[in-house]
């Protein structure tokens, strides 16, 4: 896991620094007040005058003690502070989206498999294809127009209404929920389609398995076979899929947060990239990669926990 992480940082560090346009130069090229001496001073200040491998090594050394350096932006605050204050928004939206995916997709997938080729199944297949193909930001825009602008039901941007500070605790939570409904739904739509499809085919595989036929021949009620035996076995692969969906959710946070003007990590990354804030970009990339690896590890562990065959090292 550690070598994987180091590999990721080398790739991002290299790509970022090899690209033309340094932060000390960008925005100052045509400014007559900034002499070449000033630019040189800025480069020394940011450590950009040293060779690339030395810059990387210095960055890695500081990373080992969780020092991500200071942002290149005017406030020059520690990168870690900037990220930790933005991270909860992204995490909450991702977690809520994942819960929504699980709660909706599993019943849909199971019901489609149990009633294969019924009208419900066909309708859900259509939904899945549209869910795969729909650009999430477009869905977001349409919902904003429909529910936000025309019906005036839901807020279209930000986390809080005006006067949030004056509200009581309950009111504040309700307000927050109202602001999160659209972003969570929009983040979830792609995963929703994928997960219900996956659940359906997993369930179909299990239904055709020999032990299900055996159970039938033993006269066990169809209901018990489906919801006790088959469902449990079909649920296993879902755990892995959840772990794999993390990069998508984190990557998607850029678009969703930009669309709804939510102050999360995705929006921070977008701003950092535009202003070439190297330490901040690297910091968020590392945190994103750690979250992803962590998710994968968690998925592996819970898979082992749920499946005795893996726990005991057999095949």
């Amino acid at each position: 896991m550690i070598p994987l992480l180091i590999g990721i940082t080398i790739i991002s560090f290299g790509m970022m620094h090899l690209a033309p346009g340094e932060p000390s130069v960008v925005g100052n090229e045509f400014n007559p007040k900034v002499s070449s001496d000033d630019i040189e001073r800025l480069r020394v200040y940011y450590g950009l005058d040293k060779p690339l491998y030395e810059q990387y090594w210095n960055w890695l050394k500081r990373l080992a003690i969780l020092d991500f350096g200071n942002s290149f932006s005017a406030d020059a605050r520690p990168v870690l502070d900037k990220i930790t204050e933005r991270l909860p928004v992204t995490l909450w939206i991702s977690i809520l989206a994942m819960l929504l995916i699980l709660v909706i997709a599993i019943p849909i997938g199971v019901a489609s498999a149990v009633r294969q080729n019924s009208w419900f199944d066909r309708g859900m297949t259509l939904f899945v294809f549209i869910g795969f193909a729909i650009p999430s930001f477009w869905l977001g825009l349409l919902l904003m127009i429909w529910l936000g602008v025309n019906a005036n039901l839901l807020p279209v941007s930000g986390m809080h209404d005006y006067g949030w500070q004056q509200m009581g605790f309950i009111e504040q939570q309700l307000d927050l929920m109202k602001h999160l409904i659209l972003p969570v739904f929009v983040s979830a739509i792609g995963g929703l389609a994928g997960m219900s499809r996956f659940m359906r085919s997993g369930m179909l595989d299990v239904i055709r398995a020999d032990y299900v036929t055996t159970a039938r021949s033993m006269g066990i009620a169809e209901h018990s076979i489906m919801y006790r035996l088959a469902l449990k076995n079909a649920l296993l692969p879902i755990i892995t899929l959840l772990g794999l969906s993390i990069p998508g959710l984190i990557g998607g946070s850029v678009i969703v947060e930009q669309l709804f003007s939510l102050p999360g990590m995705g929006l921070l990354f977008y701003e950092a990239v535009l202003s070439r804030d190297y330490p901040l970009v690297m910091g968020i990339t590392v945190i994103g990669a750690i979250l992803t690896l962590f998710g994968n590890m968690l998925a592996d562990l819970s898979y082992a926990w749920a499946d005795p065959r893996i726990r005991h090292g057999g095949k």
Partner: protein
Amino acid sequence: MMGAGSIKAVLTKSPLLTFGAIVVSIIVLLALFAPLIAPYDPAAINVRDILFPPSWQHWCGTDTLGRDVFSRMLFGARVSLAVGFVAVGIALLVGIILGSIAGHYGGRIDAVIMRLTDMVLCFPTFFLILAVIAFLEPSIWNIMIVIGLTSWMGVTRLVRAEFLSLREREFVLAAYSLGISSFQLIWRYLLPNAIGPILVSGVLGVAGAVLIESGLSFLGLGVQPPDPSWGNMLTEGKDNIQIAWWLSLYPGLAILITVLGYNLLGEGLRDIFDPKTAKR
């Protein structure tokens, strides 16, 4: 592989494939002949016709500079398809080369390549794409290259898996025993037998690339205005969300239909090449 008769049978049996193929061909034709079909010049600014809602004169309305949205969408189709094809071409090239090497040689080379693949797979690729594009200056060429270079992993795994199973087959052993070179073996025997799944993942890849391009352009890091792309037209839709719904509705619908078409085509092809899943 299959005669004309069986193709006909497939078309009637697999409505997915037929529908997908029709949608994709229509969009490709619209994109190819955009200059002939477009009722207006997509770049023509007309200050008297600003923000007209859809009508018989302007089927999809006009934008904030009075340009015809329908004409701009036709030219946007060219951008989307060009990005889709070139990006997938790059991804297939990288994926086939790496996958062939890993699958054919095995051992340590295989281990290194598969590690690399795993590494890129668990990377939040959209972050990487964003960072690279922003640092390289957004342009259509950079987008094609970056999308291509971040979406080869699936193809690599697929080609490797196909090769691993083909390696045990008798015709490959026969070719081996005749002393054929590795390159010849890969090029003449292994790749042609793996072409079905590669084609499927290529078609599905176009859909993915179109989606990524529209997302990038929407964020302002893709195709730059005044060149029309479905993504950057939606940015304008977002800026005028209170007053002009048609700026948001139509370009997104174009993306949805295009991606849906390619996905259906890909799924349909998969059913043909892999009859095991077709019965589902």
